[in-house]
């Protein structure tokens, strides 16, 4: 058994994200020969040179158009760990699929085409990934073969990235630059002679060094359990922090009721509990806490939000699996991809904490009036 690290590969369309993952999968033999052969044949049929991206872009439409529509993932074993590379579309209209892919990743691998530089879409991706909780980024300046592996080409990008990262909301813990060519496989598994001026490690070694360094910090916090629903005489939930203690009082929030856990059963963080609370209808979305000071309760929350389309006067949020109606008093001029910092009013009290303190109870998904996905928010 080995640890798998989730890495989302972000960046603009045509920066070479799928090509990079496809190439890595081939070089590490993470995909079967049959799958590579199929990709080769389909490249040929479309009159193209072999396109490593076809290993991931398996929809007919993706191959014909040469772009990723939907997110996917490939697991790559490397030394004593494994990476799960999450591919996401770069195209703006597919931002919802990018968010899906990025939301569970630990590291952002930002692919930038040396020819295009740090584009608007790349910046949007970085900003969103950071808002989703990613604060470790490795930048891969791709297509170095297109600029004769020259160092001059990267200076501007290097500066641009550094300036852009400074004000990011969730802070940056780790950044690293790397240079190469996904298509030619330069500086991916081993150092490239062509990039003689780069003295660092090849990309895979950079990723490896990062995950080896990223030891989990286990905070010694009091218990918080989010509740999913009831089944027979039990309730189901997820332990967000701490550990369950039997015969101890907890608070059911936001109801502010004292309950005891009389029995419990754990499968990792998934738990079933027998609690003294008799009324279990509508229990989903509530939390059990050991210490009331760990959370806040309100129907007004201060959040940083990203809307794909401009929000109307009301919308919905999904918080801990439950849906609430929310209103916002703000006039925005933009049409789409709007970031708003504001207080929203919701139709019920919720128990929450700021995203920077406890991620799991500090974030929500946004839907529009017609219940279509329209973004996400993190609580300040």
């Amino acid at each position: 058994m080995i640890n798998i690290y989730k890495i989302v590969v972000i960046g603009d369309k045509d920066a070479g994200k799928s090509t990079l993952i496809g190439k890595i999968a081939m070089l590490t033999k993470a995909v079967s020969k049959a799958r590579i052969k199929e990709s080769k044949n389909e490249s040929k049929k479309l009159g193209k040179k072999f396109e490593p991206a076809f290993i991931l872009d398996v929809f007919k439409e993706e191959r014909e158009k040469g772009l990723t529509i939907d997110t996917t993932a490939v697991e790559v074993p490397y030394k004593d760990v494994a990476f799960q590379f999450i591919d996401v579309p770069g195209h703006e209209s597919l931002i919802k699929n990018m968010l899906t892919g990025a939301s569970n990743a630990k590291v952002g691998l930002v692919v930038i085409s040396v020819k295009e530089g740090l584009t608007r879409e790349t910046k949007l991706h970085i900003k969103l990934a950071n808002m989703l909780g990613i604060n470790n980024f490795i930048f891969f300046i791709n297509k170095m073969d297109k600029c004769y592996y020259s160092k001059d080409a990267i200076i501007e990008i290097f500066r641009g990235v550094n300036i852009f990262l400074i004000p990011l909301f969730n802070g940056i813990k780790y950044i690293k630059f790397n240079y190469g060519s996904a298509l030619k496989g330069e500086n991916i598994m081993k150092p490239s002679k062509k990039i003689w001026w780069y003295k660092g490690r090849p990309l895979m070694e950079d990723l490896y060094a990062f995950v080896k360094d990223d030891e989990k910090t286990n905070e010694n916090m009091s218990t918080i359990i989010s509740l999913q629903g009831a089944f027979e005489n039990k309730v189901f939930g997820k332990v967000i922090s701490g550990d369950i203690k039997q015969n101890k009082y907890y608070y059911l929030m936001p109801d502010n009721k004292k309950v005891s856990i009389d029995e419990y059963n754990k499968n990792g963080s998934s738990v079933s509990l027998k609690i003294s609370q008799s009324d279990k209808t509508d229990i989903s979305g509530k939390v059990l806490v050991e210490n009331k000071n760990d959370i806040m309760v309100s129907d007004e929350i201060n959040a940083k939000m990203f809307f794909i389309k401009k929000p109307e006067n009301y919308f919905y949020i999904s918080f801990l699996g439950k849906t609430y109606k929310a209103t916002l008093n703000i006039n925005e001029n933009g049409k789409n991809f709007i970031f708003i910092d504001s207080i929203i009013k919701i139709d019920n009290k919720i128990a929450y904490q700021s995203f920077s303190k406890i991620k799991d109870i500090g974030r929500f998904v946004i839907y529009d009036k017609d219940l279509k996905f329209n973004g996400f928010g993190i609580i300040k």
Partner: protein
Amino acid sequence: MIEQNLKDLEEKSIYILREASAKFKNIAVLWSMGKDSTTMLYLIRKAFLGKVPFPVIHIDNGIDFPESYKFRDELAKKLKLNLIVAKSEIKPEISGFSCCGTNKTEALKRVLKEHKFDALIVSIRRDEHAIRAKERYMSYRDKNFKWNYKNQPAELWDDYSSNLDTEGHIRVHPMLDWNEIDVWRYIKQEHIPINPLYFSINGFRYRSLGCTHCTVPIKSNAKNIDDIIKELKTTNIEERSGREQDKEKEYVMQKLRALGYL
């Protein structure tokens, strides 16, 4: 093949199953008697206090292996399953793509309509097939069973609420993260009974089970679970290589899934 942490996989599968039970009123689980969907039954038991609280559907085209029928009846009795057998009719002139597309999917449509199920638990895994790798944990099918793969719902973190307005049904995929080898390791760990067709007889075994028309065995001497795990550690051959060829080409699977195939 990458071996993952079984505890983590189990924890997440249970979480997804419980989310589904909180969200949907009328859930059913699909069971092919294969290793994955049998493992799913045991995950469901873990999630729901030792019970399988949902009806279990077997789409029976009448040409499954005799071993599978025997296995089905014995396990259904042992686990006290509420088994729904949905018969589909095999027409000899139809095979491969059309066979799975029409027969199986049509039978499933009928049973869903009859019982008004709003969610189906399906045991697909991302590592099985590149098309399945693009799936969500909870995935919407419209009332005609169509999968709109070009416009899939968002699924942020562990929030699976993207399908709030539905006329069709939701496919719930709690085992999406599992690898083939993890399934076998879990079967061993949990002592899950398994269809004997997976074990080698005379140098051949089934690695992936479909019906008798479309599945062929692979060369293997793996006679027990340990042998299978050992075999999978080093293989570079696709799991579904024993399935009828045309179905496994990417676009065929894409078409099948878009039309509602499992």
